[in-house]
């Protein structure tokens, strides 16, 4: 009897010890620093929810969250990683300046294996994944993938249904000519046709790009891809020239909000939401602000007749990536699981519930309440992906392109630069960049 008791006691102790040891090895907590740029209130809330559910599912793991604005993130990320400091999982902006240079410096970890394992990018066009690719030789668009995104972005045409109906415009607008006719009718009715503000933000860039790329059919997208991926090519295309001409014409002839050069982009959006203009060309990231006005709808920028699958500027938001701070395989796996947690179909439901367009398709059986705008956007998103018709942000073409566009587009709109000169400046910037590669 005594022996047995001792035996049991012994087994009990060992069991307890192993259970305890198991506890402590898990409780030797893993602290994962995560940086992201979801600063807007609803976005921040979504991240908090996702982080909370991740921590609940992974006991012993804490997430150390840092939120920075877009510019701050860009600067401080490179400084931190270079110094062996900073996040293990982070968002990073695609393009040469951030993702490209960091990937080449070995600060980011390729994600292709994890992508295969978790099915990242399923349902997205190949072009989307390519935007996170950087080869060893520094070629954009090829090689391992370094970033997977939570949200999709589309630059499209917002329109105020009520304002248009009051002006006698027949909806839906079928093509570009229909759009031009609508502009005339709205102007005749005494309402500002297009909301615009150039003092800050990138509204002119988006209007310009949407105009230019809607003239390009998805089948002919090769030239644009080459341009953005730095493989060569030319900005002086017919589409770019036409877009510049229209933009200048509209600026000079009062088709834009009066005083637009002193109005910020955000102000223009606010004014549009308040019904002060009929149209706004901008990104789906404005849904949170615009959805307060039920008359406002979203459509792809209307293309000229004959272009069956026009490109819509868009893509995905900043990519999630694992940094070189994840040294062990366990840490890398944990990082990947976090990314999975914020880009999975389940995550897509959470994002959609808060009003955002997920890059990943929603599961068929989800019954989440979607705002009208989001429903419209998802239809467009699926269609664009199916036809590989997602256009590009032209400021990705070179590290200085954004500044070049911002500086010159206001000159174009003020009539101080001809469309030829404007497109010439963009091209000069790009060619100079190619020369340094």
């Amino acid at each position, binding site marked *: 009897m005594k022996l047995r008791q001792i035996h049991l006691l012994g087994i009990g102790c060992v069991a307890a010890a192993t259970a305890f040891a198991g506890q402590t090895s898990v409780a030797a907590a893993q602290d994962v620093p995560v940086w992201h740029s979801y600063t807007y209130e609803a976005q921040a809330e979504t991240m908090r929810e996702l982080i909370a559910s991740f921590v609940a599912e992974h006991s012993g793991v804490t997430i150390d969250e840092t939120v920075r604005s877009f510019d701050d993130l860009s*600067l401080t990320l490179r400084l931190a990683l270079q*110094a062996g*400091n900073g996040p293990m999982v982070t968002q990073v902006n695609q393009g040469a300046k951030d993702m490209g240079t960091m990937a080449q410096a070995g600060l980011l970890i390729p994600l292709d294996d994890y992508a295969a394992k978790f099915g990242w990018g399923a349902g997205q066009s190949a072009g989307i994944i390519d935007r996170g690719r950087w080869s060893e030789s520094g070629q954009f668009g090829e090689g391992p993938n370094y970033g997977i995104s939570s949200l999709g972005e589309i630059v499209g045409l917002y329109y105020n249904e009520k304002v248009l109906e009051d002006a006698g415009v027949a909806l839906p607008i079928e093509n570009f000519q229909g759009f031009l006719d609508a502009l005339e009718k709205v102007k005749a009715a005494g309402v500002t046709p297009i909301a615009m503000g150039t003092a800050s933000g990138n509204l002119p860039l988006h209007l310009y790009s949407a105009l230019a790329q809607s003239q390009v059919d998805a089948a002919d997208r090769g030239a644009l891809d080459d341009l953005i991926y730095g493989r060569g090519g030319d900005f002086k295309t017919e589409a770019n020239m036409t877009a510049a001409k229209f933009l200048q014409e509209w600026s000079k002839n009062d088709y834009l909000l009066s005083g637009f050069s002193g109005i*910020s982009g955000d102000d223009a959006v606010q004014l549009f939401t*308040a019904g002060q203009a009929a149209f706004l060309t901008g990104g789906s990231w404005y849904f949170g602000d615009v959805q307060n006005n039920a008359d406002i709808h979203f459509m792809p920028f209307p293309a000229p007749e004959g272009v069956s699958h026009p490109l819509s500027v868009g893509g995905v938001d900043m990519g999630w990536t694992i940094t070189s701070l994840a040294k062990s395989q366990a840490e890398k796996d944990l990082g990947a699981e976090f990314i999975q947690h914020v880009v999975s179909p389940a995550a897509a439901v959470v994002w959609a519930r808060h009003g955002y367009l997920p890059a990943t398709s929603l599961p068929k059986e989800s019954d989440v309440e979607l705002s009208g705008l989001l429903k419209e956007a998802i239809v467009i998103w699926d269609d664009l992906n199916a036809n590989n018709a997602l256009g590009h942000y032209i400021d990705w073409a070179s590290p200085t392109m954004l500044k070049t566009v911002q500086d010159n587009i206001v000159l174009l709109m003020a009539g101080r630069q001809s469309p030829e000169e404007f497109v010439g400046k963009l091209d000069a910037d790009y060619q100079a960049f190619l020369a340094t590669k």
Partner: protein
Amino acid sequence: MPSSAPTAARSAGFRIVLWAFALFAIAPFGLLVMTSLKSQPDLMRGAFALPSRPHFENFVSAWVDGHFSTYFRNSVLVVVPVVIFGVILGLLSGFAFAFLSFPLKKIAFALLALGMMVPSEAYIIPLYYEMLYLGLINSYAALILPQIAMSVPFATFFMASAMQQLPTDILEAARIDGASRGRILMKVILPLMGPSISSLALFLFIWTWNEFLIPLILVNDDSLRTLPLGMLFFQGRHTVNIPVLTAGAVLVILPVIVAYLFFQRKFVEGLTAGASK
């Protein structure tokens, strides 16, 4: 005060002009405060329109959403050591420049002057790496130490010029009595420096309170950020909500105004006394 005995009318005219300029100086603040009490629909009705009722919830919103309690605490935790050490170091080195001779004095002077003229943007990146090597990134030390260093040149020159205006006979007498320099500094000079010290303290307070580049670059953690940085960050999220944005601005400005109004007499006296050198 020179008096050219202006006529009554001219005198009244000057008064009007002065008060007009005074109004010009504070009008933006007035509008700021008024806007911070409005709601967004109120805004649409016009910039000068009074709000239907004061919307104090804007301030609550700014304080809470903008994490202003954290930033406020941090600003205080940083400002206090910077001001204290800035004043102490200013007294010490100001004493040296005012009364003592040492090798390379002119060069030391130029060295310090250089620091006042070069903007912090120029050396912030090397400073970042230095903090990294010292293991001080993301700590209060990273916020405090460089700002003490930044206070040193001005504090030195300010104290030096104030000390040079002290009557020399007292100093001579103390020296003849055999007191050590340290003692003289503490027992004789210090008590006479009251106004200068408080104005220096106020200057350092204002500059440190308003600094934004150092906290931006040297600190990652939101929990360590200071108020102006919080304001900048807050603006990025709330450009669309102007009343809350302006409420945040009022919260950032308020402590400085309070400190200034409290000390302003001594402040201006000290400023002009030091500056006249």
